[in-house]
């Protein structure tokens, strides 16, 4: 009885609040800004990756806006959480495109989410810029009019680089694969097998495991018994850490050459000291001697985000660096198109000649047959030391 009279009041205030927000949104918008959307994991196990992407995009947007924005308007970023869930990612992408009318979308860390968004953006004719997810079919999606671009690693090329590294560093004879059981793992299984085939190297076996597997010993024992001398690992932070812990328990000291999954969070803490044995691929590192552009971006990051105190706080650098370069390239394309219309922007991506970026100097980064701005020469190998990602000198 006490509760009843209060309910309508609560509803009323909720309604009012909702209406006020709507009014504010429609009133302020009036297309004074060029809106860009980001769909990435802002919560859940990969939340740190979303944070890194937002930081990279924001630093670039600040620079762009300081120079007057694009098309004479300021750039505005709208962020949506996909919770690493493909269905939620598609809903968010739809909302950003249809309601917010974003000029372009940026994607997050999860390949399954990006793969789910690809058909929608190609249908809606809105450029979709991948800044992390490396799944090969994201950009090579077979669409007649492909709106998906990427400034990040590509599984197929990463897999070649992983095999090359294992040959050069460990003289691998018979590697084993320990892969996460999802489309990302699948994509790399294909890539790794092809890369090994090309080098005529046989493999000991392929084992899959789940994100929430506590114990990976049975899978690893199979690989050990099959005579694996190097492990190729493809999984995100927490499951990668479970592999390292299981190896510790087995007492099996085997080199691990990994995709960049461990970079997305507190790998050092989760995996323990043996985490340093994992050598994984990156596109960029803020450690060591930086080029002037790197110094400038790092300084801007520290200024904008006071919680960044050491280099351990700018891991994973890939998210920041890829997003930073991707935002500048997208702004260049929109400026070149002279319009925020999807088809024109897509054409303009092909027209970008040169951009002096953070990761490298891009020359003709995109062509109709290549939507990936980074290639095999742009990868570096790194490892974790006390929470910081350090480059390995080969």
């Amino acid at each position: 009885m006490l509760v009843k009279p209060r309910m309508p009041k609560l509803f009323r205030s909720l309604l009012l609040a909702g209406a006020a927000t709507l009014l504010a949104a429609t009133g302020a918008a009036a297309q004074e800004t060029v809106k860009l959307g980001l769909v990435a994991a802002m919560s859940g196990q990969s939340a740190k990756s979303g944070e890194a992407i937002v930081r990279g995009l924001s630093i670039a947007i600040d620079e762009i806006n300081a120079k007057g924005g694009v098309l004479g308007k300021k750039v505005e970023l709208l962020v949506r959480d996909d919770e690493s869930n493909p269905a939620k990612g598609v809903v968010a992408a739809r909302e950003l495109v249809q309601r917010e009318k974003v000029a372009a979308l940026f994607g997050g860390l999860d390949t399954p989410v990006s793969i789910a968004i690809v058909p929608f953006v190609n249908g809606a004719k809105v450029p979709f810029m991948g800044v992390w997810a490396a799944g090969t079919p994201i950009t090579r999606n077979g669409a007649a009019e492909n709106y998906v671009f990427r400034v990040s690693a590509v599984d197929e090329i990463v897999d070649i680089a992983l095999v090359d590294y294992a040959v050069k560093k460990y003289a691998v004879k018979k590697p084993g694969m320990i892969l996460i059981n999802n489309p990302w793992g699948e994509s790399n299984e294909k890539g790794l097998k092809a890369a090994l085939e090309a080098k005529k190297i046989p493999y000991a076996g392929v084992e899959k495991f789940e994100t929430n597997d506590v114990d990976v010993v049975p899978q690893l024992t199979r690989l050990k018994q099959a005579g694996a001398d190097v492990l190729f690992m493809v999984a995100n932070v927490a499951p990668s850490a479970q592999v390292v812990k299981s190896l510790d328990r087995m007492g099996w000291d085997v080199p691990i050459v990994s995709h960049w999954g461990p970079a997305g969070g507190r790998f050092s803490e989760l995996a323990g000291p043996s985490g340093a044995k994992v050598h994984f691929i990156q596109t960029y590192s803020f450690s060591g001697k930086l080029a002037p552009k790197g110094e400038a971006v790092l300084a801007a990051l520290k200024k904008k985000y006071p919680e960044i105190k050491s280099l351990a706080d700018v891991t994973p650098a890939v998210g920041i660096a890829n997003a930073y370069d991707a935002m500048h390239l997208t702004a260049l394309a929109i400026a070149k198109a002279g319009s925020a219309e999807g088809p024109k922007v897509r054409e303009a991506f092909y027209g970008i000649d040169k951009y002096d970026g953070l990761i490298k100097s891009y020359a003709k980064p995109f062509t109709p047959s290549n939507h990936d701005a980074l290639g095999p020469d742009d990868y570096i190998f790194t490892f974790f030391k006390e929470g910081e990602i350090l480059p390995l000198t080969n």
Partner: protein
Amino acid sequence: MLVTSAIISGLGLGSMYGLIALGFHVTYVVSNTVNFSQGSAMMLGAVLGYTFAVTLGWPLPLAVALSLLLCAMFGLVVERALVRPFAERGSNAWLMATVAGGIVLDNAVLFTFGKEPRSFPSVLAQKPVEIFGAGVYPLQLVIPLVGLGIALILHLVFHRTRLGKALLAVVQNADAARLMGINVRLAVAVSFMISTALAGLAGLLIAPLFNVNSDMGTLFGIKAFAVAILGGITSAWGVMLAGLIYGLVEALVTSFFGSVYTQIVVFSVVILALVVMPNGFFGRAAVNKV
């Protein structure tokens, strides 16, 4: 070595499933209802333990005791708010209400505890010992012992003590039990508190082998329910043994056929087992007289 390590992995995981499944058993035998947020209660135990022991740096025994107490309080809330209002009306909506309660808790933890998985260090999970050529953390040996110990205690309490018989009387005929002077509401509430405390204990035990995060309990909750049904939910021993068997089958299938087949084979076995033995391995068709 393949078999040894599979057996040890399997028994360790299996006893975790068993512990959570015992929680399903306890509420079922007392009230004919179960708490589908058991997985979340497990997560709560691990998250609270981490917060007290690691973040706040309190002594471990205090952290464990307080975590279990709070997990029990969660069980009380589940019973009062999500089960009793429906069960007393004869409605089955508690089923969905407890699922929803678990999702609410998972998300509340996501926003308060944080998004990233954290590591829960333990002296029992640092240096592996070698058993028949397979490396094992001492904690992996402790877990089955705790599980079997608790199954034994539950068995003795339900079958040898007045309290246990009083609790079992509730499910047979709540009105008659009430007339006999048994506090039915208290009995049901206590069973839910025990149930979530057991799940919390499972969470605390698994955390050092795994990590602590807000959705760590989901898969465990599902597997534990399968285990509870397989074990014939009415028998504490049955549930614990079913947990161990489930864990063993899981690890052995992975070892011999490869991980790709694990879930397919294990859950097919679950379905098959239920077809052959509708009351589970150790269940009885009806509750026996007490």
